[in-house]
C-alpha cells in the first residue's frame, strides 16, 4: 500500500492566468506568471535543495540552500523568492552552487545533534535528506564552543541549550534540534492565523518562542498542529511518532468531527494509527487541520469504549454481555412484540449525523421498510432543521449555496450566530486569511467571539444583540437596504418575483423594523446596524455564514428566511464569493438530512406524501410505505410519556445530553419498553437503554460523509472494527433478524441504491468518487462533476421567494425571578456532548464547563472568578464554576455543554422553532447565585448514571 506521497512544490501555486515559459537545466517548462523558480523547477521534475521553503507558506528565502544561477543575471538568487520570467535560463546544479550549498549545510549541521539513529524524525527528516542531497561528507567546525546542542560544554552549564517543552499533550518542542527556518512561525501565522509563535532574539540567539518565551500550553497556541507538520526536523514532533515510530502506509479519509469535513491521511504502522496528517488535495481543508481532527482520535481506543453487545431486562439491572446474535434476536423480538401489542407506530428510530450516509440510509430504510412507519428523525432536528425549512422555502434547496473555496472571492463576510474559530476552526482559518487580505467583517453575536477581534482580524461592525432578537435585527438590516435604495434591482427582477419583493420591501420598510426601534429592543446601537447594512449592500461580494445561533430559536426558521431575503435583495447569490452558508455542526449532518432522516421526507428531501416518490421505494423494497409523516424526536418523547410510543433504536446520538429539557427526555426514555442504543460508549442515553449495540469508529469502516458545502467525501477503513462489525453491518443484521432480505456486501452497494433512487445523487458511485476525489451534490446528468455553487443561472425552485419575517419575541422572557439570558455554545478543544473529545487529552484545555458572566452581573451577585454558582431556570437548576469576562454583555450569561455532569440542558426549556421544532437552546431566562456545590439533581443523576453503567461480570462466556 505504502504512504500516500504528496509533492512539496516549495512555494504556493500562482493563480495567474498568464503563462510564462522558461528553461530549467535545459528542460522547457511553462507555468503561471508569478510562480517561483523553485516551483517551476519542481513542475519540470527537478527538485532544488531547500529547507525553509514548503508550499503551505509563502517563500521566505532564509535557508540559502535553494540558490540557482540564471543566465544574464549576477549572483546566486534563491529560487524560492525569485519569480519566473519569460525566456529565463536557470541552472540548478553548478560547481559554484554545489560549493555554496555544501558550505551552508555544513554550518547547519555544526549546530545540530548527530543522533539520527535514535531521533523520532529518522526517515522523515528534511535536514537529513538535504544533507544527503548536497553531498555533505564532513563537518570541519567540530562541536566545541558555542552551540545549542549540548546540555553541558566541558562540564560547564550551557546556557544556550534549552530543555524540551513537553507541555502540549500531542507534540514536543525540542529546541536543540531547531534550525530556525521559521516554517513553524509562518505556518502559525499564514495557515492557522493565530500568530502564537515568533523568533525571539537575533543571530545565534534566535529561537522559536511560543508566546512570550512561554510553554506551548501556556501560550496562545491552539494546537492545530500546522507547525508540527511544517517542521523539517524533529524539533516539533508528534508524541505518537516518538512513541510508535514512522508510519509505513497511509489511507486518505475524512475527519469525523465538525461539518467542515477535512480530508486526512491516516498514517498507519500495521493496524496502529500513528498520526493524522491533513491532505493537501482535500478540497474542504486544503491541507489544514484543527486540534480535534489531527490529534483527538484517542477515544477510539479509550478504555471506556464498549466492544461487546449487552442487554438487560430493566434499566436498574446491571448490563449483561451477550453475543451479537442474542442481542439482535432480543431486539427484533422486542420490537415485534411492542408493535403487536401497541401498534405499528409504537416504535421508531433516530439516525446519526456522526455515521456515514450509507449507515443513515440503512437506519431510515429499516424504519420505513421494516418498522413500516415514518418514525425516523435525526439530531439535525436540534440543530439545522430550520436551515432545511428556510432555504427550502426561499431558494428551493435545503443546503448551503457555496463551496468553501468561495471565501477567497468574498469582500464582505457576515457571520450570524456562529463562532467559527471554535466550532469550525479550519474554515475559520481560511476565512481569517481572506480577512487579513482586506475583506470586511460584520458579526452578529451576543458574545464578543474571537473572530470579532483577534490578532490581525477586526470586525468592522459587531452587533452584540440580545439573545432572541435575530429576526428583528436581520430585518432591520433589510430595512436600511430597502429604505436607502441599496438593493440590487436588476438581480431581483431577473431572479425573483418582483411583486413578492415589493410586498416584502413594504413590510421591512415599516417604521417598527427600523434600526432605531429594533436597536432599542435588541440593545444594539442603531448606527451600527445602519453601518453594517450599508457595508454589506455596497461592499462587493457579500457572503453570509451562520450557525446554530440562528437556528436554535423559537424563530429559527424565520431568521433563516430573513437571511435568504437579505442575500437575494443584495444580489448575493449564484456566483463565487457570495451566498448563504450554514456552518453545519456535525461531520455528516448534511448527509443525514439528505438521506431521508426526517419523518416527512424520503432521501433527497422528497415528501412522503408524494406517490411517485413512494413508488420508487415501494417497487424496490417490496412493501407499501406509510404516506403520513411520522413522529419527530420531541413527539416521540411526548408519545412515550403518554404511553403510545414504546421502542426506540438510537444510532450514534446522545439525546439525553444533547436534547433540551433533560428531565422530559429522561421521562420519555424511562417510559419505553425497549430502548436500543448503538454507540461507542455507554452514553447518557444508555442509562435508560435495554440493549446496547457497540458501534465502530470512522477509522473502522467504509462509507461517505457529506460536509457543509454538500461535498461527498470518502471515509475509508484503516483498521478492522474493534467491536467486530461496522455500524452498517449491525443495522443490516438487525434488519435481517427482523426478516428483511438485505444483502449488502459493501457500503458501495448501498451508495449505488441511493444513486439509483435519488436524482441529486444519480451520478455518485464509489468508483466515481475514487476518480474525482470528492463531489458536491447535485451530481447527475445535468451536473456531471457536481455543483460547487448553486443557483448560478436561477434558483432551484424557479424564482427566489421573498417572505415577510415578522418578529415575534420568544415566550422565554426575563423577569424578576430570572433576570439573565443564558445562551450556549461550543469551545475549540471539545466537540458537542464531548463523548469523544472528553476521552482524549483535549481535556487539558477544557476540563469542565464554565459559566461566562459579565463583571457587572458578577459583582451584583458577589461572585468571584472561579466561584461555584447555581444556575436556575424555570426548567431546572445545575451548578458550575463562574468565569468572569466581558466577552458577554451585561444581562447575558453563556456556557458550553460538553460535560454531562454539568448538564446545561437541564436548564434549557422546551420552547422550539415554530416550523421545525428545533429547540430554543440559545435563549433561556435564568438566575445565577452563589452555591456550595452540586445541585440535588446532579447528585441524583450521578448516582443513577453510575448505577446504570454497571456491567455484570461474565458468567458463561460465549
Amino acid at each position: 500500500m505504502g504512504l500516500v506521497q504528496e509533492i512539496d512544490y516549495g512555494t504556493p501555486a500562482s493563480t495567474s492566468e498568464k503563462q510564462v515559459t522558461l528553461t530549467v537545466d535545459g528542460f522547457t517548462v511553462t507555468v503561471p506568471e508569478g510562480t517561483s523558480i523553485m516551483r517551476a523547477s519542481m513542475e519540470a521534475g527537478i527538485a532544488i535543495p531547500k529547507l525553509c521553503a514548503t508550499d503551505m507558506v509563502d517563500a521566505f528565502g532564509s535557508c540559502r540552500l535553494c540558490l540557482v544561477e540564471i543566465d544574464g543575471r549576477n549572483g546566486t538568487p534563491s529560487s524560492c523568492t525569485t519569480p519566473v520570467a519569460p525566456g529565463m535560463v536557470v541552472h540548478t546544479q553548478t560547481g559554484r552552487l554545489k560549493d555554496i550549498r555544501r558550505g551552508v549545510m555544513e554550518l547547519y549541521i555544526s549546530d545540530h545533534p548527530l543522533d539520527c539513529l535514535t531521533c523520532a524524525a529518522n526517515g522523515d527528516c528534511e535536514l537529513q535528506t538535504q544533507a544527503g542531497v548536497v553531498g555533505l561528507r564532513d563537518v570541519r567546525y567540530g562541536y566545541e564552543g558555542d552551540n545549542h546542542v549540548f546540555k553541558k560544554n566541558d562540564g560547564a552549564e550551557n546556557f544556550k541549550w534549552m530543555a524540551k517543552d513537553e507541555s502540549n499533550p500531542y507534540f514536543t518542542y525540542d529546541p536543540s534540534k531547531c534550525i530556525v527556518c521559521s516554517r513553524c512561525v509562518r505556518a502559525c501565522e499564514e495557515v492557522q492565523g493565530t500568530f502564537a509563535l515568533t523568533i525571539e532574539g537575533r543571530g545565534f540567539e534566535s529561537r522559536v518562542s511560543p508566546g512570550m518565551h512561554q510553554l506551548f500550553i501556556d501560550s496562545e497556541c491552539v494546537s492545530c498542529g500546522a507547525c508540527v507538520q511544517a517542521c523539517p526536523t524533529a524539533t516539533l514532533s508528534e508524541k505518537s511518532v516518538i512513541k510508535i515510530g514512522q508510519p509505513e502506509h497511509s489511507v486518505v479519509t475524512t475527519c469525523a468531527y465538525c461539518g467542515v469535513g477535512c480530508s486526512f491521511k491516516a498514517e498507519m504502522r500495521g493496524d496502529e494509527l500513528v498520526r493524522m496528517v491533513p491532505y493537501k488535495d482535500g478540497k474542504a481543508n486544503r491541507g489544514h487541520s484543527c486540534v480535534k481532527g489531527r490529534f483527538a482520535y484517542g477515544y477510539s481506543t479509550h478504555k471506556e469504549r464498549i466492544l461487546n453487545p449487552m442487554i438487560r431486562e430493566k434499566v436498574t439491572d446491571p448490563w449483561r454481555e451477550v453475543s451479537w446474535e442474542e442481542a439482535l434476536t432480543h431486539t427484533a423480538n422486542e420490537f415485534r412484540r411492542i408493535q403487536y401489542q401497541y401498534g405499528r407506530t409504537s416504535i421508531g428510530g433516530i439516525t446519526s449525523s456522526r455515521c456515514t450516509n450509507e449507515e443513515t440510509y440503512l437506519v431510515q430504510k429499516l424504519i420505513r421498510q421494516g418498522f413500516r412507519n415514518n418514525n425516523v428523525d435525526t439530531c439535525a432536528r436540534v440543530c439545522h432543521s430550520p436551515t432545511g425549512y428556510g432555504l427550502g422555502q426561499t431558494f428551493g434547496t435545503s443546503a448551503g449555496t457555496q463551496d468553501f473555496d468561495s471565501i477567497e472571492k468574498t469582500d464582505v463576510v457576515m457571520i450570524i450566530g456562529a463562532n467559527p474559530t471554535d466550532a469550525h476552526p479550519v474554515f475559520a482559518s481560511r476565512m481569517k486569511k481572506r480577512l487579513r487580505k482586506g475583506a470586511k467583517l460584520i458579526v452578529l453575536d451576543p458574545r464578543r467571539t474571537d473572530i470579532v477581534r483577534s490578532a490581525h482580524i477586526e470586525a468592522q461592525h459587531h452587533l452584540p444583540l440580545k439573545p432572541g432578537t435575530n429576526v428583528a435585527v436581520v430585518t432591520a438590516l433589510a430595512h436600511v437596504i430597502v429604505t436607502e435604495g441599496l438593493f440590487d434591482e436588476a438581480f431581483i427582477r431577473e431572479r425573483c418575483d418582483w411583486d413578492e419583493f415589493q410586498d416584502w420591501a413594504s413590510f421591512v420598510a415599516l417604521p417598527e423594523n427600523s434600526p432605531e426601534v429594533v436597536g432599542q429592543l435588541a440593545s444594539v446601537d442603531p448606527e451600527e446596524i445602519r453601518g453594517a447594512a450599508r457595508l454589506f449592500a455596497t461592499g462587493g461580494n457579500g457572503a453570509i455564514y451562520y450557525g446554530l445561533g440562528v437556528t436554535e430559536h423559537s424563530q429559527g426558521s424565520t431568521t433563516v428566511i430573513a437571511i435568504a431575503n437579505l442575500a437575494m435583495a443584495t444580489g448575493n447569490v449564484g456566483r463565487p464569493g457570495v451566498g448563504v452558508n450554514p456552518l453545519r455542526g456535525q461531520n455528516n449532518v448534511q448527509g443525514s438530512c439528505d438521506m431521508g432522516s426526517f419523518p416527512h421526507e424520503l432521501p433527497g428531501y422528497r415528501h412522503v406524501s408524494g406517490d411517485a416518490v413512494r413508488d420508487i421505494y415501494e417497487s424496490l423494497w417490496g412493501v407499501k410505505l406509510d404516506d403520513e409523516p411520522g413522529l419527530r424526536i420531541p413527539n416521540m418523547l411526548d408519545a412515550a410519556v403518554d404511553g403510545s410510543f414504546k421502542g426506540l433504536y438510537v444510532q450514534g446520538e446522545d439525546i439525553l445530553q444533547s436534547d433540551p429539557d433533560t428531565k422530559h427526555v429522561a421521562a420519555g426514555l424511562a417510559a419505553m419498553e425497549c430502548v436500543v442504543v448503538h454507540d461507542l460508549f455507554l452514553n447518557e442515553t444508555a442509562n435508560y437503554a435495554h440493549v446496547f449495540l457497540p458501534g465502530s469508529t470512522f477509522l473502522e469502516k467504509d462509507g461517505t460523509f457529506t460536509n457543509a458545502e454538500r461535498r461527498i467525501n470518502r471515509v475509508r477503513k484503516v483498521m478492522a472494527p474493534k467491536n467486530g462489525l461496522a455500524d452498517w453491518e449491525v443495522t443490516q443484521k438487525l434488519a435481517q433478524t427482523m426478516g428483511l432480505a438485505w444483502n449488502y456486501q459493501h457500503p458501495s452497494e448501498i451508495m449505488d441504491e441511493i444513486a439509483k433512487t435519488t436524482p441529486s445523487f444519480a451520478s455518485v458511485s464509489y468508483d466515481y468518487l475514487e476518480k474525482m476525489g470528492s463531489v458536491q451534490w447535485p451530481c447527475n446528468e445535468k451536473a456531471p462533476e457536481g455543483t460547487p455553487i448553486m443557483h448560478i443561472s436561477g434558483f432551484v425552485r424557479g424564482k427566489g421567494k421573498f417572505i415577510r419575517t415578522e418578529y415575534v419575541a420568544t415566550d422565554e422572557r426575563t423577569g424578576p425571578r430570572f433576570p439573565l439570558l443564558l445562551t450556549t455554545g461550543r469551545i475549540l478543544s471539545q466537540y458537542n456532548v464531548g463523548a469523544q473529545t472528553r476521552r482524549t487529552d483535549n481535556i487539558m484545555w477544557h476540563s469542565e464547563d464554565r459559566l461566562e458572566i459579565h463583571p457587572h452581573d458578577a459583582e451584583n451577585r458577589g461572585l468571584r472568578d472561579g466561584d461555584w454558582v447555581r444556575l436556575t431556570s424555570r426548567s431546572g437548576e445545575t451548578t458550575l464554576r463562574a468565569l468572569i469576562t466581558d466577552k458577554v454583555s451585561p444581562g447575558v450569561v453563556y456556557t458550553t455543554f460538553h460535560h454531562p455532569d454539568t448538564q446545561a440542558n437541564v436548564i434549557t426549556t422546551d420552547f422550539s422553532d415554530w416550523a421545525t421544532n428545533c429547540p430554543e437552546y440559545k435563549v433561556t431566562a435564568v438566575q445565577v447565585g452563589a452555591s456550595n456545590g452540586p445541585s440535588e439533581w446532579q447528585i441524583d443523576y450521578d448516582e443513577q448514571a453510575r448505577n446504570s453503567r454497571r456491567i455484570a461480570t461474565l458468567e458463561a462466556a460465549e
Partner: protein
Amino acid sequence: MTMQPASTEIASRTAAIIQELKGLEGPLLPILHGIQEEFGHVPQDALPVIAEALNISKAEVHGVVTFYHDYRSHPAGRHVLKLCQAEACQSMGSDAIAAKLKQLLGIGFHETARDGSVTLEPVYCLGLCACAPSAMLDGAVIGRLDDEKLDEIVAEVRS
C-alpha cells in the same frame, strides 16, 4: 480581571503611551521607545497591553522586543556607557580599552554596578570609525579613547 497592583500601574502608564502614538504608521517601535523612556526598560507586563491595543499577538511583540538589543528587560544604571567593539575600534585597541574599563568599573558587559551608577554595554559601530576607539555615554559620543578619557568617564559616572 485580577491583576496585581504593580502591573495595573504599568498597564495604565503603558496605555497612555500607546494612546499617544497609536496613530503613527508602524507604531510598535515608537511605542516601545516611549515605554523604555517612561520606565527605563520595557517591562514584561507592558507587552500584553501593547499586543491587545495594536491587535497583534503577544508573540509578535515579544519577537520585536527581543530582536532589538536597545530594549532592556531590566532597568539600567543611572548612566549607560556603550563601548564600541566593532572591527575598526578593535583594530585601534578597543579590546584593551574594554578590559581596562571593566576593571575600573568592576563590572563586565551587560552588567550594572552594585550602586546602580552605571551599566556597561558593548555596541557594534557608532559610525565613529575615524575617531576609533569610541564610546557613547548617556547618548553623547566620545572619540579617541585613551587612559585619560577613561579616567574622566569613570569620574563622571561615579559622581
